[in-house]
């Protein structure tokens, strides 16, 4: 069943579906701390239960202008290679089971999105991109940024 569970969120101005098993949790950011001289998609650091998480701004990863992380913002926490990261989310919509199968991405995506999208899925009459949050962390930033 876990395979069918998806988090529907709005990140980088786009509604996407994230596979729930890739996600650690969804939390609210405390006071973010800036990381000077870090890569542009690093939006800062914040502490959660004595762990330090690195904030990632998906806007930058897909080639949009960066947004500022603010206290109280919802973030999607993921673990990549034993490090904790949090993707800034514009909105968290829902966690739901989607029975429809994941399909191959059709149509031409913006280069930034093409790199993070794994597949597409039908949900409540809309096509959503299925993205792997790890890609936001590990991929180099889109040069269009």
């Amino acid at each position, binding site marked *: 069943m876990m395979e069918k569970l998806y988090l529907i969120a709005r990140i980088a101005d786009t509604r996407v579906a994230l596979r729930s098993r890739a996600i650690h949790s969804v939390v609210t950011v*405390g006071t973010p701390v800036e990381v000077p*001289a*870090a*890569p542009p998609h690093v939006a800062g650091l914040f502490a959660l239960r004595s762990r330090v998480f*690195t904030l990632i701004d998906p806007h930058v990863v897909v080639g949009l202008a960066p947004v500022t992380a603010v206290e109280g913002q919802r973030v999607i926490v993921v673990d990549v290679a034993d490090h904790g990261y949090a993707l800034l989310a514009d909105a968290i919509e829902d966690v739901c089971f989607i029975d429809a199968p994941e399909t191959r991405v059709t149509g031409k995506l913006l280069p930034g999105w093409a790199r993070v999208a794994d597949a597409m899925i039908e949900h409540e009459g809309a096509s959503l991109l299925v993205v792997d949050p790890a890609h936001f*962390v590990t991929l180099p930033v889109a040069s269009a940024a």
Partner: protein
Amino acid sequence: MDDLLNDFLAETAEILAEAGGALVAWEADPGDRERLDAIFRLVHTIKGSSGFLSLPRVTALAHAAEDALDQVRRGNRPADAALVTGVLGVIDRLTQLCGALGTGDGEPAGDDGEVIEALAFAADEPASPEPIEIQLRREDDLAAELQAWRSIRVPLPLLDSVMTGVTDIVLARNEFARMLRESGADPRLIASFDRLSDSIAGMRQSVSQMRMQRIDKLFAPLPRIVRDLAQELGKKVKFVASGGEVELDREMMENIRDPLIHIVRNAVDHGIEPLDQRVAAGKGVIATLSVSARQSGNQIEIEVRDDGRGLSPDALVAKAIAARIVTATEARALSVKDKLELIFRPGFSTAAKITSISGRGVGMDIVKANLEKIGGVVELRNDEGRGLAIVLRVPMTLTIISGLMVRAAGHYFAIPRGAVREILLESSDSARIDRVGGGELATVRGEQFPLLRLEEILGLKPGADEDAEDRAIVIVRPGQGQSYALSVAAIHDHEELVIKPAAPLIMATGLYAGTTLPDNGRPVLLLDVQGLLAAAGIDASEAGRSHDEAEEVEAEAVAARKAAQLLLFRDTGGRVRGVRLSVIERVEEVPALALFESAGTVHAQIGDEIFPVHAGRLPEGAGMLKLLRLHDGQRVLCYPIEAVIDIVRLPDIVQPAAVPGLIAGVTLVGGEPVELLDPFWLMEQYALGEAAAGPSQPLCQLAGDADGWGENFLAPILRGAGYRVASADDALAGGAPDVLLSLSDEEGPVADGVPVIRLRAAVAAAGPDDESVYRYDRQALLEALRVRIGGGRS
């Protein structure tokens, strides 16, 4: 089942490492029954656990090794190199199997026949004649197994989660404490809260101790490495480890494992000479390689020492030049220490040829970099021809360090306290900041440091609210031989920090060494003090600086030694004059009454001696007088002065006087004209007619001076002419006489080789061959003396 297997693998890996080391040690001393028992127990444990987990290959291997060892224990088999090699072979195979098991595919199929075969004892071989004393003490085994129950195995993630939990508790406590204070709670409540607080602090301490491990774990694989390598290279090496009880954070341990192994391999491969060279150098055939650990403060010092050939600074330089690491010009400027440290330069390999053992691209530069990453340093103690010691110094724990909190542009950062040498305010008197060609330089008490502004390196805009006047300088020493000044907006405080690695994409900036959560619960980045340097692209090496400084100091000292010093004084006329300090013997203070006039010149009586004084007339009145005693090596002349003013460096430019005289010239000292005395002229004035006794003056001995004529009439003339005179009765106090003056006609005793002048009372000579001199013929006498011995003054 999986848990059991994991436990088995973890335990076995440990046992195998330990057994390898123990075997090699046992091989060196086969009579060591205790060690044999220990090895036997280790193998026995593996056999027991593997049987339980049904791992037939492991069981069979362990059984074979156990069997062979038991034969030795029973005295049925000698302990020889073949046996040890066989058991080591089993251990290698077991290690392979455990590796395969760890991947989770169960025990792989395979044949261990040959490995077990190698262990078999060929009974028909002539048995070793030396019987080994072995007592059967099997009950010991039981005792040792009981000991094992006193410690337990805890998975690392559990330990880490305990650590995280404690950190959480600390953070919660801090917040709670703040709330308590704000609510104005009952003091009794606060007191009991404080008690809780204390136990939390204690717990935090214990948890960090839980992460400590004995360093002998790190040493365990070394004997095996040394043995195999030495055998391969045909060298004989005795390995000694000490200080294994020292404890180190397990994370630090991971970080120094590879550097340590590399250094040990290097020592065997390059440091220790081949046998023939050792013999030629008069050393024992068996080389000693020792590894020792000791704790000093919160640092651990690990020393790897060999008694090999050491490092040759010149060979290193030649090699570095050949490898184009330095130019010949640069090399000449290197100190011995710099030369030795060439081995830490990337691309440097000390071996004449690259061997399969050490020269594999992992150089000492990597060793150094790895150590510096964890805040450690590498030191070389070289004794050329006799050995080399490499000392690794690492902090005891990486995870909790003392950190200095600083602020820049409104952000807080931590700096490892260990790297901070000094903290001072930019406005402080002891610091000066200069802008030099776009860069900045901080001079702190004469020492120069490149100045980095933290905001600039991190690309931050200086905060508007921060006072540019009030900035602080942190003198940072990121590694040995390097230092720089880091300018920050403010120093906050320092506290114990739990350091966690930051995300790789943050670490990749090279500016940060990790993240930490101080007590306010907001993450803070730990600055990588070495990385800041790289980012700023400056050379912070002290070598150049201190070198120049030392050279400067040296040059100054040389110049000071060469430059003459000038004694400034006020003479009796009130004028400021100067004289070279080196001609002054000392300054005398005498009563005015000690001066007297005689034969037109003033003399001074100082003690038992009389010296001429350069003065036109006797000073008026009584009181004390100061006299400069000028000394030319033979004679003394006094020069009366009023007071000594100072001793200064003799200025280079002197305006010479037009005519020779008392004043040699005029120079400027501190903007004031000063007349310089001419000691040559002064001495010249008084040298004439003065007859002070000196050792360079020939000694005349009077012989046959029966009526005292010689002593009363002749001696004063001789003394006036610059000779010393001794009567015949004098016990030749002045040593052997240079000439003998015989005053009587009879033949006196004549010493060998001493010329004799006979004086006669008659005016006329007794005959043509009479060489005697008429005693009142002053000219003839002095001439005779001059001819015989020279010296004196005519």
